[in-house]
């Protein structure tokens, strides 16, 4: 088994076609005005330059349940609007999750045919089994949560103007 094969097991890939421009998708990922409208609906902060900070805030409802203000943090490694964004990604919900440390998320946006763009999320989850289970939503009976849920909600928002 090569090192590559070992790494691949802990990587997850998600892909969705959205009827929107790459710029609209880029904005929906990186601006808090958009991120409060889909998925977990927390506001994000991105300093869009290598070494810049990335933070995702909990919604007021989540904070009322005892979740810390900043629930996800990381460092931007690459920002090439509106095509590619790479940043590290760590959950701060609990000490156990914090201890798993940083993973890496890569967002790729490509123009596709007929007004669609293809959004690909590659999540490298080496050494983070708790987060791997959460983002794959394999821990959720209801099927909510995880990248598939977030991305389908993002698609719904950009295409119909409302999330699910």
């Amino acid at each position, binding site marked *: 088994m*090569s090192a*590559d*094969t070992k*790494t*691949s*097991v802990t*990587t*997850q*890939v*998600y*892909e*969705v*076609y959205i009827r929107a421009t790459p710029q609209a998708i880029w904005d929906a990922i990186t601006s808090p005005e958009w991120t409060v409208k889909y998925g977990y609906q927390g506001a994000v902060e991105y300093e869009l330059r290598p070494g810049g900070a990335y933070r995702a805030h909990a919604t007021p409802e989540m904070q009322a349940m005892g979740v810390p203000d900043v629930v996800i943090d990381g460092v931007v490694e690459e920002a090439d609007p509106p095509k590619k964004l790479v940043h590290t990604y760590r959950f701060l919900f609990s000490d156990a999750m914090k201890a798993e440390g940083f993973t890496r998320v890569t967002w790729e946006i490509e123009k596709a045919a007929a007004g669609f763009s293809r959004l*690909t999320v*590659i999540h490298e989850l080496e050494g983070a089994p708790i987060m791997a289970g959460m983002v*794959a939503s394999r821990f959720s009976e209801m*099927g909510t949560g995880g*990248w*598939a*849920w977030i*991305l*389908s909600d993002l*698609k*719904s928002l950009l295409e119909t103007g409302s999330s*699910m």
Partner: protein
Amino acid sequence: MNDDRVFKALADATRRYLLDMLFARDGQTLTQLESQLEMTRFGVMKHLRVLEAAGLVVPRWSGREKLHFLNPVPVRLIHNRWIHKYAEHQVSALAELKAELEAKVCRRTRKRA
């Protein structure tokens, strides 16, 4: 639009099995997948192509290896569009029926008592 391709891709036992294999272990090569199936390499490739066209499998290159990843987003979208909508309705209808029947049984039992 893409729903047809997803339903078609899912309407085959071998392709569903391939998805299950990737669910159990994501990011496998054609050679790894082929070794678990009683099928020619060409046959597995053909099935993978259908899954890729439906977006259910996304290939990524890692050096010289082509790895196949399970992409659950199309299934999620079908769930949102079809299953959630009808299942919710059905479940609530059944829940009402259950409540109604149980209430009747309750009334009858009370009459007898």
